[in-house]
């Protein structure tokens, strides 16, 4: 089952002044359960592609289908609703809400979805357990290490039961041990619960764990390799 389909995606920044062609006809299909790394040098268009797939940005041209829906036709408000119900985000800088505890950060998305409290509590505890943070439930981000914050971010991304998770350089701010821990957690979730992960990364440790590596160069896919783990 295809979770993401892009056809001829192009993205040009500053089209009227000094055009920068970030993506130049990207065709990419990602199936459910994939563990895909999008790699490439800086400026190759990784983040732009991730933003477009995630409905945070719009392509200049091309077709994009996510979870069976053509998201290029959605309004800004519809895109917000779509993201909330279908996509989990993990950001490089964790981006947790600093005034909320780990539990509240995870619960927040479910609250926006209107999920009843009992269900929210149950799922939050399950997710905290899944990322190994049962004992940090009432800790605020400032009381957690970078690795722990990123694990909360992963749990938050999973909270809405999204079709897939987009992780933009998720290990960029982590030390080696935290990176390995995080990758183990995400790989387990992928293997056991068939959650689809799409990363953009420079990190060789992430690339080494990916089962599919898509390489972008100058806004074009230069290679697309499935790796046997």
């Amino acid at each position: 089952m295809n979770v993401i389909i892009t056809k001829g995606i192009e993205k040009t920044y500053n089209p009227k002044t000094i055009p920068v062609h970030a993506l130049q006809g990207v065709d990419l299909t990602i199936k459910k359960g994939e563990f895909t790394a999008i790699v490439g040098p800086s400026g190759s268009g990784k983040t732009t592609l991730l933003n477009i797939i995630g409905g945070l940005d719009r392509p200049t041209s091309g077709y994009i289908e996510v979870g069976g829906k053509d998201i290029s036709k959605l309004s800004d408000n519809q895109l917000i609703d779509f993201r909330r119900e279908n996509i989990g985000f993990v950001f490089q800088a964790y981006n947790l809400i600093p005034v909320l505890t780990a539990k509240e950060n995870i619960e927040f998305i479910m609250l926006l979805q209107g999920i009843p409290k009992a269900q929210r509590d149950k799922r939050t505890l399950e997710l905290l357990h899944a990322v190994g943070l049962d004992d940090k439930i009432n800790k605020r981000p400032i009381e957690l290490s970078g690795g722990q914050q990123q694990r909360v971010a992963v749990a938050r991304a999973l909270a809405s039961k999204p079709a897939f998770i987009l992780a933009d350089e998720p290990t960029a701010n982590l030390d080696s041990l935290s990176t390995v821990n995080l990758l183990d957690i995400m790989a387990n979730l992928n293997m056991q619960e068939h959650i689809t992960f799409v990363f953009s990364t420079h990190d060789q440790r992430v690339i080494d764990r990916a089962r599919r590596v898509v390489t972008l160069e100058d806004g074009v896919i230069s290679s697309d390799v499935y790796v046997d783990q």
Partner: protein
Amino acid sequence: MLLKIAWKNIWRSKVRSLVVIIAIALGVWAIIFINGLTVGITRAYINNAVNYEISHLQMHHPQYIEESIINYQIREELSDLQEVEGVKAISQRMLANGMISSPKAARGIVVRGIQPAAENAVTHLSDLIIEGEYFGSKARNPIIIGQEIAEKLKIKLRQKVVITFQSKGGDIVAGSFRIIGIYKAKNSQYESMNVFVDQKDLAATNGEKMIHEVAIVVNDINSIDQIQPLIESKYPGTSVRNYKEISPDISLYESQIQVNLIVIIIIIMLALIFGIINTMLMAVLERIKELGMLMAVGMNKLNVFMMIVFETIILGIVGAPLGMLLGKMTISYFETRGIDLSSYSKGMRQFGMSEILYPHLEGNVFIQLAIAVLITAMLASIYPAYKAIKLRPVEAIRSI
């Protein structure tokens, strides 16, 4: 959850939030204090005018109002006026426009021929005596004059003055009166224009007793509108006017002071609005990344907008009661002790104001203020909240 986040967000920068809360509290305090002071000044002004000068209602011959000639007297039998329901006290006065002369000077005045006991029940004249005594002694032709007149005529207690006026027959008549009392009115202009003599003495000088004015005090000032038509219908040949009709400056003063109050409140509220906008704008701008993240993960614009509005309203909800409490305490303190403005009393007395002001708060001012602060906070939150929802998540997330 939005409220919870909003509450926690405002305490991220404690000092900044406290400054805004204190600013709101001080603004609210200032409004309450000015309001209390205004109500106190207005009440004192009206009370002074009503209790010591013009009373609640006055009756005259209709033409006397146009032209104060001694012949325009009230001819109705007034003995049962006191029986009208709601009437507390009446004073029948004989008035004469004339001249008071001392050996050193003379000036124009209104001679008020009164029945001492009845007059005192209406205008509390005896309370205003600062030298000498009220009528009651056996002195012949006693007169009570104002302090201002005494100073201008350079006369003292127990000295004689000559009162001259045109009698009913058109002749200029004069009488010699001995000063038994000097009064100090709440209004210095009134004090410089009016002298009081016993009605019997004035009638003797005039050659006939006449009544030109009846001052009426009612039990309840709020019942004036009901009592006035009753008296009008009972005495159709007279003109009955209430204190606002007699002294239109009271209404003017009341409305003017209300306008001033509104202007002051608007200025304070505007200052608060811009202070809050500044703070909330800073709070939004330093959280661009976080707001971008919230929208990225699915928090819709309405929720983002409401979160900023809630944060602003919470600042108001915390600050306003503080200011109200402070204001209530301040007013309560001065309501009994008064604010002594005696160093400005000369200027104030010219306008009929008291030397000591007693601020007073009407109960509904707190409800009005609570609504005003809520509206202020909501107005102040609109621009920062608008800035927040105009952020593009893709750019906001990458901001530093």
